[in-house]
């Protein structure tokens, strides 16, 4: 297994206004990645999470060698590979839209990347069977692409990308175009295949739930910087700042400025933001209650209440059978032990 590290990586795209024949001047350069440093652990599934413009795809392209960094190094087991061209890096990259050869069967599509290499036929056959097995495609090996369902097509495309067993997989939002049910299924397949092959995988997404569900570790990026890199549970419990706290978790965390917090009788802590997860807010019906339920939303397995007191609002996650509805007078309690103190971002 291989370990990859990125050291002080800086990337930029020339400013479009610089024009074709003018060299971009230093200040006309738009910095996309600034001082990115991290190390992958062998065989881990690392999810890179961020909004549009965070630099996630740029980072992936730099790792694949499709983009030359301004400065910094990329290391493979300690060896500098920054200058090595993409085809010699032995990485596989999967993009948002992928397609299959329509005139080939599933087995032929899967075997295609291995053809022309130094693989003996028996090895090719073995890998095709293994890959098809993990992706639940064993019974479809003889089918042609147009005879497959959308989900099966996606699985074949994924298998074809991964069958080579490269040193590193790079997946750039591969599930964005799929509907919710199919996405859930594909997440499971990707993770199962990755754990089976034990190849390190970098997975880019803007969907926090997808990130938390799949990842061994999550790296949160914003505006070209790494905000935090840790296991999902750790990031959820101890977010590095208010931005990270806000991006992870649904329903969204309650973030209270000091003056709002004091109106609710919560500790006011020297300019920092108070973060309260909705599951740590309890709401009880009470005729004398000073708070009101403003919005009541069903999740199926739970209820999200937006409650208001003294013009400050909190979201609470409560049991579905609580029977509370809009307009009800309630008492609200915040679990003090679980309040997060966050640096504003």
């Amino acid at each position: 297994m291989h370990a990859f590290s990125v050291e002080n990586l800086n990337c930029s795209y020339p400013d479009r206004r610089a024009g074709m024949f003018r060299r971009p001047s230093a200040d006309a350069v738009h910095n996309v990645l600034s001082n990115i440093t991290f190390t992958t652990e062998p065989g881990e599934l690392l999810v890179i999470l961020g909004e549009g413009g965070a630099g996630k795809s740029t980072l992936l392209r730099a790792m694949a060698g499709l983009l030359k960094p301004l400065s910094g190094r990329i290391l493979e087991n300690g060896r500098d590979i920054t200058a090595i061209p993409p085809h010699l890096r032995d990485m596989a990259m999967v993009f948002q839209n992928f397609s299959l050869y329509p005139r080939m069967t599933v087995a032929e599509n899967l075997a295609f990347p291995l053809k022309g290499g130094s693989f003996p036929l028996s090895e090719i056959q073995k890998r095709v069977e293994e890959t098809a097995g993990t992706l639940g495609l064993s019974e479809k090996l003889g089918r042609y692409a147009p005879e497959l369902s959308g989900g099966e097509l996606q699985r074949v495309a994924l298998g074809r990308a991964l069958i080579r067993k490269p040193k590193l997989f790079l997946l750039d939002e591969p599930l964005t175009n799929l509907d919710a049910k199919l996405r859930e299924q594909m997440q499971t397949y990707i993770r199962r295949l990755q754990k089976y092959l034990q190849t390190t995988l970098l997975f880019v997404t803007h969907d926090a739930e997808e990130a938390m569900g799949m990842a061994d570790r999550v790296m949160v990026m914003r505006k070209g910087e790494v905000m935090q890199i840790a296991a999902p549970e750790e990031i959820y419990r101890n977010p590095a700042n208010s931005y990270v706290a806000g991006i992870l978790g649904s329903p969204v965390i309650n973030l209270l400025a000091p003056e709002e917090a004091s109106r609710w009788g919560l500790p006011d802590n020297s300019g920092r933001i108070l973060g309260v997860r909705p599951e740590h807010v309890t709401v009880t019906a009470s005729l004398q209650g000073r708070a009101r339920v403003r919005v009541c939303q069903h999740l199926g397995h739970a209820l999200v209440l937006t409650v208001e007191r003294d013009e400050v609002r909190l979201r609470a996650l409560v049991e579905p059978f609580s029977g509370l509805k809009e307009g009800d007078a309630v008492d609200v309690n915040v679990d003090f032990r679980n309040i997060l103190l966050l640096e504003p971002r």
Partner: protein
Amino acid sequence: MSGVALEFEGLGKRFGDFAAVHPLNLSVAPGELLVLLGPSGCGKTTTLRMTAGLEFPSEGRILFDGKDVTRKPPGERDVAFVFQLYALYPHMTVGENVAFPLRTQGRSAVEASRAASAMLERLGLGMLAGSKPRQLSGADQQRAALARALVRKPRAFLLDEPLNTLDSAQREFLREQIRELHKEMEATTLFVTHDQAEALALGDRIAVMGEGKILQCGPPREVYENPNSLFVANFLGTPGMNFLFASRSGEAVRVQGADWMVRVSDLPDSKAGLGEAWTNKDGLYLGIRPEHVLLTGEGAPCQVEHTEMLGAYSLVDLRAGKVRLKARVPGGRRYREGDTVGVSFHPSGCRWFDAVEGNALPWHTQEVKCTPSR
């Protein structure tokens, strides 16, 4: 202001030989928010367009407060329609866009712009009144479109997947705002979506549609907890309900592929009326939502395949033989991959379905015991 009472009587629409909407009956109370939920092609948007007058029904009637409007043109129905794509006038400012419907109603410029800015303020867009639509983010454009629909206080709102193009964080935020505005304005609203989470969160009631028919209609909690068919059960909830294919074996149910027995205390007797569905059919499904799968020391042994840590709760992927299950557990608990856990089901969460017909069987389960069959 109170909304109109909407009623569909045998409302249907055919395109040639194809029945897009089979004749359906539905009434929406004044001030109610009813969500039409279903996969694409189920007829939900066609139903909405017929209500607006953009499509003429092939049969049946549409009544507003008891008056037949089936043949009335859209302009005389006094409804507001919000599309998936914002459809703002690009050459007007946001303020002018919102004031526009009032101007066409003949209100004075001053009055219209006053009402428009009040509405924009209400939706948190006050600062953007002077901007052109293209300068706004997608979420703000959609909010401006909502403001334009709301400002003239129509008798009914018809919304066609208005949150579709937004990302999940913005969707969550706007969902809350729409629900709150609805409670404030009490206008009768039809909301079309294919997103079950949106339907549960927004609706006073949900009508689940499939292949041009209303399959079930009820409050979110009822549709989620007591689905009347496999289709509805499968459509609501993420992750979806677990379905275990099972067959009767003496006084218990044998789960296929896992060597489990599920003992159900009040298994219907084959002599009783209910039992007929039971004895005549090849098999049935036991449906159980992830939050009703209990991980205990006892019960049927399952292997943990993966734990998805989602914050307030975790989802645990379980496997026993060929059967795969998902369980929803509180966030603090940890299960390692490869561990063996005992699985049982919360009796009140067990739902039974006829495997052939797909309809729900009205059996109540008092007690469940999962045991290995060997």
